[in-house]
């Protein structure tokens, strides 16, 4: 395959960025999108130029490292697919492809396609956990959780923290990310003692980081590589409202 790439290059957070054009030939349709970028980088390095910096690691769609806009879509055209699981057979021979970093104020660009997503960790640090010190746990089967409830909790827990939801959102809202964790922990009985504090603290941190509000367009759900549902946001809102009326 032949490809024409337009890749966002930016030397640092305060430096100006721009699209740079690259032509690639001999791309196999069986390559993953990242292997295609590896090919580009090998070519650049051989010419003594700096490689395009992009995040990646497991290349199995689970670590959440990869983070790029492909023709305006976070992780590219496929539903439920992270960039590393996207293959070149999805593109036409001779296609022009635009590759950009996540665009959101709380995700400052570090270099090229690499952004700083530590705001998501700070949201988790405020309440995305159950406070149980090592050694405090009761026998596992004393907590009974029905299969359906366990499955429902899993749906939120499956989030890989990539930030595609933020990148897809016109408001750069982190509501899908935050709500997935809130909903996971609100569903299981172990999470109940801290429900009230958790939702308030996580939502407050989400706002403090500068993420925008949710206006229910559902772009996040469409972009999520783990297909996490918009219903989680409704659940977060319920949890939040509940936290002001229920005494715990």
């Amino acid at each position, binding site marked *: 395959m032949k490809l024409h790439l337009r890749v966002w290059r930016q030397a640092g957070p305060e430096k100006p960025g721009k699209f740079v054009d690259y032509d690639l030939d001999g791309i196999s349709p069986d390559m993953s999108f990242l292997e295609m970028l590896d090919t580009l980088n*090998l070519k650049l390095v051989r010419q003594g130029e700096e490689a395009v910096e992009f995040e990646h690691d497991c290349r199995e769609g689970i670590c959440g490292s990869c983070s790029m806009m492909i023709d305006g879509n976070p992780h590219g055209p496929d539903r439920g697919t992270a960039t590393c699981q996207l293959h070149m057979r999805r593109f036409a021979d001779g296609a022009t492809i635009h590759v950009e970093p996540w665009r959101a104020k709380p995700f400052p660009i570090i270099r090229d396609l690499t952004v*700083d997503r530590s705001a998501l960790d700070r949201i988790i640090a405020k309440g995305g956990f159950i406070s149980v010190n090592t050694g405090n746990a009761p026998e596992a089967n004393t*907590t009974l959780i029905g299969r359906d409830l366990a499955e429902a909790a899993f749906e939120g827990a499956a989030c890989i923290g990539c930030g595609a939801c933020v990148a897809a959102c016109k408001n750069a809202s982190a509501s899908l990310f935050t709500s997935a964790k809130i909903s996971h922990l609100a569903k299981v009985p172990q999470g109940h003692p801290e429900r009230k504090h958790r939702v308030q603290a996580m939502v407050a941190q989400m706002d403090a980081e500068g993420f925008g509000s949710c206006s229910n367009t559902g772009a996040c759900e469409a972009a999520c590589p783990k297909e996490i549902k918009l219903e989680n946001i409704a659940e977060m809102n319920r949890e939040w409202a509940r936290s002001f009326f229920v005494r715990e």
Partner: protein
Amino acid sequence: MIGKLDSRIPSGPIEDKWTQCKFENKLVAPANRRKHKVLIVGTGLAGASAAASMAEQGYQVKVFTYHDSPRRAHSIAAQGGINAAKNYQNDGDSIRRLFYDTVKGGDFRAREANVYRLAELSVNIIDQCVAQGVPFAREYGGTLTNRSFGGAQVSRTFYARGQTGQQLLIGAYSALMRQVGIGAAELFTRTEMLDLIVIDGKARGIVTRNLVTGKLETHLGDAVVLATGGYGNVFYLSTNAKKSNATAAWRAYKRGALFANPCYTQIHPTCIPVSGDHQSKLTLMSESLRNDGRVWVPKKQGDKRPAAQIPVEERDYFLERIYPSFGNLAPRDIASRAAKRMCDEGRGVGPSGQSVYLDFTDAINRLGAETVAARYDNLFAMYEKITDENPYKVPMRIYPAVHYVMGGLWVDYHLMSNVPGLFVLGEANFSDHGANRLGASALMQGLADGYFVAPYTVGNYIASEKQPVIRDDHEIVRSTLAGVKAANDKLKSIGGKTPAETFHKRLGKIMWDKCGMARTDAGLKQAATEIAALKKDFWNDLLLPGDSSTLNSELEHASRLADFIELGELMCRDALERKESCGGHFREEAQTAEGEAKRDDANFCHVAAWEYQGDGKPALRHQEELKFENVKLAERNYK
């Protein structure tokens, strides 16, 4: 040269050793713990769980990861599950049976006392993870459910769909982030450890590089804990994440820590076959698939018919045929070698002939496609994305690939290396899996080490040692920092024409061909010559563009590769000296008439621990004899 290796195994019956050890341990009073600093490198299952637990205890914890977030560590990619001796299935499991299976699975090359402790702690791990909200699979009545894994005849594997590693890591990560949020642990992301600071023979700190600014820094403390994972990427192609590397462990080795059994690598039988030269990594298909999938090749050589057109009587379900009592759930090393033998006989399938079928047709007919989907749909979907083939319709094709390393830094029962104050946890150490790891045991070991072992044994070390205060201006701190700077400058100054990637692929090919699934005396000697030539070329011809004061993944890769090349040399040397076959280490000279691994207990019932002797000098081989008092040394039989 170091003296005799002391594994510090507590006296008494094996059931009481850990209790005895904990009782004999010295304690640091709660109010005094905040005066002591522990540096933890790595945030996978072992590192994150140790950091969270020790911060909860009250120590000052600094924790380091080269990722942008602790949650990216490669533990996240583990699919199948985690073993624990809960006996919830009422099928005769017990701590003793898990211990026995693990020792036997490791082909009698692990230390009994460590393995027993691992089995003992396995039950606590499940309790802890459930309390954290980890969504394990459950029965309709609400209790936890299990599945079977290779090398066991009981069902003791807990799982969260095909994403068990992710869920366990998120549990440990959230516990860690809770400590970070309250200021009890300090987190350094995008920070890579590049050297160990050893003062008066003790580990007192590390040198790190900030991967964004390139700034080199030193961090000092009372103890250093390495939880930096395995070195499977020495083979270039493996199921490891792209950034997984040996650098932290290797640099500790060069500061005096012994490297144990480097040649013990696990080749996993069920990976998606290589599709071309562009391939950057290999993808595992969970061992859990072998619960329902049947592995076969055509009986005839070179049979190119599509799978569906080959009648059942012309198929060889070779695992079921050769190992009737374990069948498709034969352990990984055994199943991998059997698949290789089939391909070597010319009966492999697929375009390259380098794969075997993993077929779900019978399971779909027996259980229905819906039940099969409920068990494996995410794996089937991943397979289809990569190969463009639908495993509900045509059998999966699989081939063995490098997955895990059993070798690692030598540690005693306290998980402390021979360098006092340097602790090594998880895949980075060598301790529990012998020469072959059973499925669903890596998660178990990472969390046992991090939640339940290190918090006790590191505390004991801190309580036992009176440490002088060290500051940044200490001569050794400064010289270690200067050494790292000089090493980076040296890489930058080569100015050659060949990118790191090219050298890495070349190293991988040497290792896979000559130190992979089958090893010979001549091949290993040849590999040593080839690696020496590669090393020379690397240091003469490396092309490294970009700046060292910004994010520069080429520099990171080159720096890690320099260590992989040296490690590759040591792996071949270790494989050459171990003239027996055991577990994942298969020497063609040492096999039974049926082609199975043939151990030599008279000469090799020991751990080989290598001591660095300086650049260009051959490493020195030490031995720790292994004593089997609770499990009888026997030929490993899965027939």
